[in-house]
């Protein structure tokens, strides 16, 4: 086990002018589960590949456990990895697939067999040890890939969207299982995904990436509740955070959709100084409450679409020409076209700069 220290990584793929990673720095503590989250093309896989040694950066450095590995080939880095495609060798039986890394490390036979048996047991592969990958289901192949990675006792465990090729139900099951296994191992883990639910549920910390840079790094709940910018708020959460154009007046009122409520102190102060401040108001669907039209402190809105989801009901609501999503309890009876009042949970409202899209905080 070891920590990972990434400093100022820059990488451009041949034939491309855009930086795949632009000056990325990231420290992963020993035993930490770090998730790299972002949309496709954000550089998260590139970053992982550079840590793995499958690609080399143009600039910057990577060290694992204090050892500079920036330009070492993968076989000299003492790591293990689960690939998105699993990359389970089709010509080797499950047993020899799992043992591959151990054979390469020339681990004594007795220890090797013990470890393979342990991993097979942990991942419920024992009955399949003498089968070829072609005779396994996708989920089982995935387990082989994970088993092959965990027998290594490597310094660092890398995972590149390991769950993305599983069907939804299997993914849910395996996600929890993976979390349990990694917690048991306690290994330093770098995990790439574009699925924000995976990132939230697995990580100790999550690094949200955008256009080759880390947009926000933090505890998953922090990233969820206090997105550093509009991109993060819009990327994390299902449905994503609602964004409303608004304005803080010189008098300290927050105007949204032609209606006004009270603005928080720090914004009122800067608005008073600058003579009015345009802001982007961010609020999550579950932090908006439905009330009767006309209740003091609510905004007038009209329900457009009602989508019962079972555990909750998702409403698409028109608020003075802007469309937002509101999540209410499934017991709430509401129909489309209904005129309602919306109350925002003041503590959950986030404000963003309209120019830089960055979060505004006190």
């Amino acid at each position, binding site marked *: 086990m070891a920590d990972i220290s990434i400093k100022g990584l820059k990488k451009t793929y041949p034939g491309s002018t855009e930086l795949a990673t632009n000056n990325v720095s990231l420290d992963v503590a020993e035993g930490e589960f770090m998730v790299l989250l972002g949309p496709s093309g954000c550089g998260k896989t590139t970053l992982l590949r550079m840590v793995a040694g499958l690609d080399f950066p143009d600039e910057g450095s990577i060290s694992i456990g204090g050892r500079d590995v920036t330009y070492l080939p993968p*076989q000299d880095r003492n790591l293990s990895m689960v690939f998105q495609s699993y990359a389970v060798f089709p010509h080797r039986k499950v047993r020899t697939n799992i043992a591959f890394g151990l054979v390469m490390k020339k681990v004594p036979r007795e220890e090797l067999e013990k470890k393979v048996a342990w991993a097979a047991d942990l991942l419920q592969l024992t009955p399949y040890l003498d089968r070829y990958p*072609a005779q396994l289901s996708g989920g089982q192949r995935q387990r082989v890939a994970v088993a092959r990675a965990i027998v290594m006792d490597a310094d660092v465990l890398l995972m590149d969207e390991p769950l993305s090729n599983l069907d939804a139900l299997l993914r849910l099951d395996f996600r929890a299982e993976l979390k349990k296994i990694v917690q048991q191992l306690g290994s330093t883990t770098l995990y790439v995904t574009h699925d924000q639910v995976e990132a939230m549920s697995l990580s100790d910390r999550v690094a949200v990436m955008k256009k080759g840079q880390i947009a926000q790094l933090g505890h998953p709940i922090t990233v969820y509740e206090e997105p550093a910018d509009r991109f993060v708020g819009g990327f994390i959460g299902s449905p994503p955070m609602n964004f409303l154009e608004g304005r803080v007046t010189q008098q300290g009122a927050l105007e949204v959709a032609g209606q006004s409520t009270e603005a928080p102190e720090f914004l009122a102060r800067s608005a008073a100084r600058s003579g009015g401040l345009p802001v982007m108001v961010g609020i999550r669907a579950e932090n908006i409450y439905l009330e009767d039209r006309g209740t003091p402190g609510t905004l007038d809105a009209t329900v457009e679409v009602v989508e019962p989801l079972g555990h909750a009901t998702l409403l698409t609501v028109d608020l003075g020409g802007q469309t937002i999503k509101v999540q209410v309890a499934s017991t709430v009876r509401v129909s489309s076209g209904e005129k309602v009042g919306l109350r925002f949970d003041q503590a959950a409202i986030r404000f963003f700069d309209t120019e830089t899209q960055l979060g505004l905080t006190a």
Partner: protein
Amino acid sequence: MLLIAPSIVFMTLLFGWPMVSGILQAFGGPEGLTTANFTRMAQDPYFWASVGNTLLLIVVMIPIQFVLALAMALLIRAKPRGSSVYFYIWAIPLAVSDLAAGLVWLTVFTDRGYLNSVLASVGLEPFSWLAYDNYASMFMAVLIAEVWRATSLVFVIVVAGLQSIPKDYEEAAGVFGAGFWDRLWHVTLPLLRPSLQTALILRTILAFQTFAVALALTGQNFPLVVGETYRWYTGLQDANVASALALVVMAVSMVTAVGYLKLLKDQSEAPR
């Protein structure tokens, strides 16, 4: 039946009928069916020499060609600068007819050829490379010409095979601690098995039929089995023995192909 009728007719006319008539000819004689043609074939002084030469050529040439083709294909896969140019250059011999290739190499190895000119210009004695009493140099000349001419077939098949292997496997092997040779031995070669099998079958069958290069370089001094077929047919005007020889080549080719398929059988796709 109606839909496949054209192909059946074609196969019968262009493949089945000539084969049957060839077989009949091989066993044909003035007094009906006989094995006399095979006896005559085996008693010919050149026959066993040609069998020996053909087998020696195959045994020496095929490993050389596979190592070369694999090395070339791996170089292409590593994508050095201009790798596509190399690919086309290395594939050129595919387009050269074997007789032309033999003639090109004749200009190199003949007594007043390029090789001897180079030797003379650096002050060395010229050498009769293709003289009938210099068996070793004659064999080397045929071997070099054949390697040059026919390696590209193996190369093209191996390149195609390599392209169909996802990079992930080699990358995974690397991450799990395998260096270049381990990756080649434990991952690339096993995954390349179907392509190697195809190339091996094709190349061996074609090697049994090596003919024009040796003929151009050595005439009858380095007899090969198919060359003997040609000699029986045109020189000795005996179509029956020529057919018998051809039949032997075909039988050996078929046995070899089946042998390779059995030997290199892929276990991982065995039924559940």
